[in-house]
């Protein structure tokens, strides 16, 4: 499969799966409908079909027009304007096999749609199909160069491949005649980085809609200022690049999605970049480290953050619906100092539906001050919650309980036990007691599925499970996965669990407890 791409950064297809049919194709189809329906009113179809039987049998163009339009002629008939449609008659009456083959052909618009999905190398080769195909690839809206769409030749050295790749991008951009909706380049590195600067300059002039750059080796690519002049940019994905925002940056008015991975950027530039995108809906920051992140994005719906940050602050994200934040152990010194905790995080995202608090993020959120019984603003829309929690940590358990009390619509809860090697104090016993005091959970009735994985300690985790089965009236399933490294013999766990559950009050009559392998 040529287009499946290697990693998530390369594929020519990402962002395309599920994409609607290009609008121009549909408009074309509609136009056909109106013109042919006129033809129909004039009752010309009989003439056309008679024609194709005899004199026009040799005229390829005429036939293909007829074929392209035939389905739409029938569209008209189905509304009752004309009774019979000679489409299949046409097919049977043609005497030569040549015509029959031609009638088997697809409408040109469909062939174009198919060939538009081909990787660049195959697309270029379509110019050899026939004269009418000669220039078509030059208006393909998507240009993607990566090892799958532009594979190395057999026996080609790395250097030769890079040179051929550079030539290919050069040629493609030089010969391309239409606007480019998407440009992606993914390779290890290039011989001459100035080439990329020039390509980005061309793309910015052409009003490119989506740019993806991924260089997985060598020094991070220093992004040229041209990139920030692409005013029509709707999507930008950068991997291993060095971003320095020019003074003249006016913002990306149309940018909807921004993915940054292994990026080198200052906190101030990142803040300016994000706040320069007024309609940003999707933001991903992965494997980024070091800088402060302050997010001010009124339309942001999806946020994915992973890595090591000094400071992470959701300042203005009123419509955020899905957030996944996984921070590594060394992040967030400033988060503690800045007094940014669970309450602040949750009041910044009142509309949240899916939340993942991963890595050491919960440690940071629960580290400061007193944890309230409930959040000041309930998260009434939260349906899916995933937490990396250390069951042995009192503060984290308290924070989790506080969160659970505040989301009355929660349906699916997933907790991964996370052993923290840097934990300051062993508070396992106190943590266990948190779950014993199960008050204030009267609105816990939407919860249907709970999964607890990597369970390594018995006390607090089992207390939590008892808490769940006692509180969730409509629980269907509780899945428990053990950490095999620590609890290699699960018979002991089963025994303890059985004892505990037998004596435990259960709110749901139909709930099942499943021990995962």
């Amino acid at each position, binding site marked *: *499969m040529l287009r499946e791409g290697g990693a998530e950064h390369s594929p020519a297809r990402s962002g395309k799966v599920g994409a609607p049919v290009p609008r121009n194709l549909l408009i074309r189809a509609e136009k056909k409908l109106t013109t042919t329906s006129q033809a129909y009113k004039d009752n010309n179809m009989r003439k056309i079909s008679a024609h194709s039987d005899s004199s026009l049998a040799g005229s390829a163009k005429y036939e293909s027009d007829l074929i392209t339009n035939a389905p739409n002629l029938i569209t008209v008939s189905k*509304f009752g304007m004309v009774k019979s449609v000679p489409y*299949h008659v046409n097919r049977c009456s043609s005497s030569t096999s040549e015509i029959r083959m031609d009638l088997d052909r697809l409408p040109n618009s469909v062939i174009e749609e198919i060939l538009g999905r081909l990787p660049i190398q195959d697309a270029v*080769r379509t110019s050899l199909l026939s004269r009418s195909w000669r220039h078509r690839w030059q208006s393909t809206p998507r240009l993607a160069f990566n090892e799958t769409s532009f594979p190395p030749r057999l026996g080609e050295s790395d250097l030769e491949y890079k040179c051929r790749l550079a030539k*290919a991008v050069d040629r493609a951009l030089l010969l391309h005649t239409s606007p480019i909706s998407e440009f992606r380049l993914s390779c290890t590195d290039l011989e001459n980085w100035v080439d990329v600067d020039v390509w980005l300059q061309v793309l910015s002039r052409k009003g490119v809609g989506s740019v993806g750059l991924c260089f997985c080796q060598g020094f991070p690519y220093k992004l040229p200022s041209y990139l920030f002049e692409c005013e029509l940019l709707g999507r930008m994905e950068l991997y291993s690049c060095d971003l320095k925002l020019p003074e003249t940056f006016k913002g990306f008015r149309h940018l909807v999605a921004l993915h940054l991975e292994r990026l080198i950027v200052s906190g101030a530039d990142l803040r300016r970049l994000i706040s320069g995108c007024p309609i940003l809906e999707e933001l991903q920051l992965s494997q980024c480290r070091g800088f402060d992140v302050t997010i001010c994005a009124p339309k942001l719906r999806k946020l994915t953050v992973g890595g090591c940050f000094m400071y992470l602050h959701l300042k203005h994200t009123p419509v955020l619906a899905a957030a996944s934040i996984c921070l590594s152990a060394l992040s967030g010194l400033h988060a503690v100092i800045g007094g940014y905790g669970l309450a602040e995080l949750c009041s910044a995202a009142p509309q949240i539906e899916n939340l993942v608090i991963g890595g050491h993020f919960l440690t940071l959120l629960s580290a400061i001050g007193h944890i309230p019984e409930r959040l000041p603003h309930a998260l009434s829309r939260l349906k899916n919650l995933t937490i990396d929690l250390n069951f042995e940590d009192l503060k984290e358990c308290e924070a989790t309980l506080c969160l659970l009390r505040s989301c009355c619509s929660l349906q699916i809860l997933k907790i991964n036990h996370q052993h923290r090697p840097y934990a300051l104090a062993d508070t396992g016993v106190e943590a266990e007691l948190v779950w014993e005091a199960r008050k204030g959970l009267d609105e816990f009735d939407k919860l249907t599925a709970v999964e607890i994985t990597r369970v390594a300690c018995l006390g607090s985790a089992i207390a939590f499970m008892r808490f769940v089965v006692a509180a969730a009236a409509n629980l269907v399933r509780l899945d428990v996965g053990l950490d095999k490294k620590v609890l290699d013999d699960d018979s002991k766990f089963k025994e303890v669990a059985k004892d505990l559950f037998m004596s435990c009050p259960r709110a749901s009559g139909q709930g099942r407890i499943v021990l995962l392998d």
Partner: protein
Amino acid sequence: MSSGDSGPSSSKQLVQQPAAAGRSPNQPPLLGAGGRKVIVLKSGDEEEFEVDLLDAMQSRTLRRAIEDGCGDGPMPLPNLTGPVLAKVVELFRRHRGDPRWADELQETEKEGMFKDYAPQKPTAEVKGFDREFVSVDRDALFDLLRAANFLEAPGLLDVTCDAAADAVMNMTVEEVREYFGLVNDYTPEEEAALRKQHEWAFQ
């Protein structure tokens, strides 16, 4: 026609009960199980299929026809054969709630017609179904592509075009020509010159 190769037996099962005959054209759309509105599609070989209104909306052609008030009686689709239509109807059913046309449905929303519509991403099961759906030979795939083009169904077109693109990928120019039934009208000199010009794209 070989479109039935992939499983005519399974497609037959989709034909829900035969549509009630002899209704006057002014009657409201049929109500299927659970009081949902259904419309009846009639293939070129006179097979009738009941389709949930919500599923039929995945086709712009059908949607226009329904909006124009043609959804009351059986809707003739003379250039689709029974087996092809059966497959298409099943795809529509599996893709109910596909967010790809959520915006379009909202545009055409009238009188709470689509209040059941709940957008949901295609599950792994649906994706598996799609793969199975297009695992057919060239002729059958072309039938589906023509159906997609005629019905203007973006989801169907997407699935089938992807399959066709996968099929022609890595083919030589000659093989692609043959696959699509295209005629080479270059002179040998022209072809050689063009090949040289695009040398970087050939293995």
